[in-house]
């Protein structure tokens, strides 16, 4: 056997990618089966969405505020202070708000799901579900992945709105921009090419966070340190995936000429 194929066979990194791919394939297979767990899905939407509202809102607010305060001196230097609302809103909506929201959620939701399913695995709760006739993959994994996929765009939209408001306050700390003028400039510069791609990518962020959290928890190693490891690695892998998806999304938007 040549060294490359040995590497491919032995590499834990590639093995993990393969396993995640299989897990994702299983997700699509199971979601197509009849009987959806609607009650548990709504329950998860509540946990994932509602319970992250404040965290995401506060972060969004600070992001807008800080970005505006930080950008002002540079714009002043170029005599383009009046561009402040336009510039800040484009950066926030296209990139900063969705990505930061996704990273926050990778931390909160990814680790939450990883730890929850991990402890259910090691205390045999997942086996108990299977024995009592409930498909645990459908009940636990499909509902959580779907909830994360649908809630991330909602949370990200909220972060968008609040960060723009933070931007308004930031612009008024030193300068003086009226409420009407600020929003006129913001909506004047933003178009569908900015908003839609950034909204669409948040679905993928949510999907990735849900899949990774569930994968890590569902196959958690025995023992309490196994649960801890599931939660931690879920955050690391999900955050990394958020950046990779973002990179791909930028390339696609670019190719489609939506810039």
């Amino acid at each position: 056997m040549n060294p490359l194929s040995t590497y491919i066979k032995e590499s834990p990194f590639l093995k993990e990618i393969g396993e995640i791919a299989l897990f994702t394939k299983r997700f699509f297979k199971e979601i197509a089966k009849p009987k959806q767990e609607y009650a548990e899905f709504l329950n998860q939407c509540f946990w994932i969405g509602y319970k992250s509202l404040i965290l995401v809102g506060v972060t969004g607010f600070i992001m807008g505020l800080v970005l505006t305060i930080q950008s002002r001196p540079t714009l002043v230097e170029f005599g383009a202070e009046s561009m402040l609302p336009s510039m800040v809103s484009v950066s926030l909506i296209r990139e900063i708000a969705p990505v930061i929201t996704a990273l926050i959620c990778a931390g909160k939701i990814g680790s939450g799901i990883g730890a929850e399913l991990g402890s259910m695995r090691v205390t045999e709760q997942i086996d108990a579900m299977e024995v009592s006739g409930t498909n645990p993959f459908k009940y636990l994994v499909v509902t959580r992945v779907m909830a994360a996929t649908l809630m991330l765009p909602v949370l990200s939209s909220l972060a968008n709105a609040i960060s723009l408001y933070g931007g308004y306050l930031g612009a008024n700390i030193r300068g003086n921009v009226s409420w009407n003028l600020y929003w006129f400039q913001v909506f004047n510069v933003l178009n569908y090419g900015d908003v839609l791609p950034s909204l669409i990518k948040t679905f993928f962020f949510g999907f990735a966070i849900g899949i990774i959290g569930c994968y890590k928890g569902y196959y958690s190693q025995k023992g309490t340190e196994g649960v801890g490891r599931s939660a931690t690695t879920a955050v690391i892998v999900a955050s990394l995936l958020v950046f990779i998806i973002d990179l791909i999304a930028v390339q696609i938007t670019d190719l489609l000429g939506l810039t």
Partner: protein
Amino acid sequence: MENEPIIEVRQVNKSFGKNHVLRDFSMDVNQGENLVILGKSGSGKSVLIKCIIRLIDADSGSIKVLGNEINGLDQEPLDDLRSKIGFLFQSNALYDSMTVRQNLEFPLRIHWTKEERLKNGYSAVMEALTDVGLAHTIDMMPSELSGGMRKRIALARALILRPKVILYDEPTTGLDPVTGREISELMVSVQKKYNATSVIISHDMNCIRITSNRVIMLIEGRNYADDTFENLKKSNDPKIKEFFT
């Protein structure tokens, strides 16, 4: 049919990588008996009963439960068969995000219709809880209960569908001797009430003495000895003796 064993395990093998856990293991469990499986920690006792309910697939061999060959059974008949088997997990496996009542109702959601659940769900839960003497905990969370109480709730959940077969994975391990004894006595009374057949994994001598009609010793992956507790206790075989000293 009358004399056919309830569980028939034939030549079952199971390996995890190079770890050959079960080697040509065979046994029969007859109607109404309490069979104890005794073996060292890590000898494959949990693997064996998880194979019986097909949480783990055996590599080879045949397992028949209530006349059904479980390997190769489709999902629906498998779920149907599992509804006739109660499983008490070593770690109890209570759903810790649910109340005691929701824990007990969980197996009903698949096997009963919505009307049945609304009509008889509460009384079934109450009956199972009364059987284990914990009716007052119905609205509590598992985290509010002691270890012995959690074990009883887990037993109540295993009984809710009135199973014909009950599988116990180390029911008294980790409990104090008094509570362990109470659980053992509870198992005997439950077995009488439901006229069930039980397979009990244990290395707690008190539990074995109270519950067992027959004991199988699982040593090196094989059915090493099969006799009553009293006879095994008198054995001179060093491999058996070390369990009884």
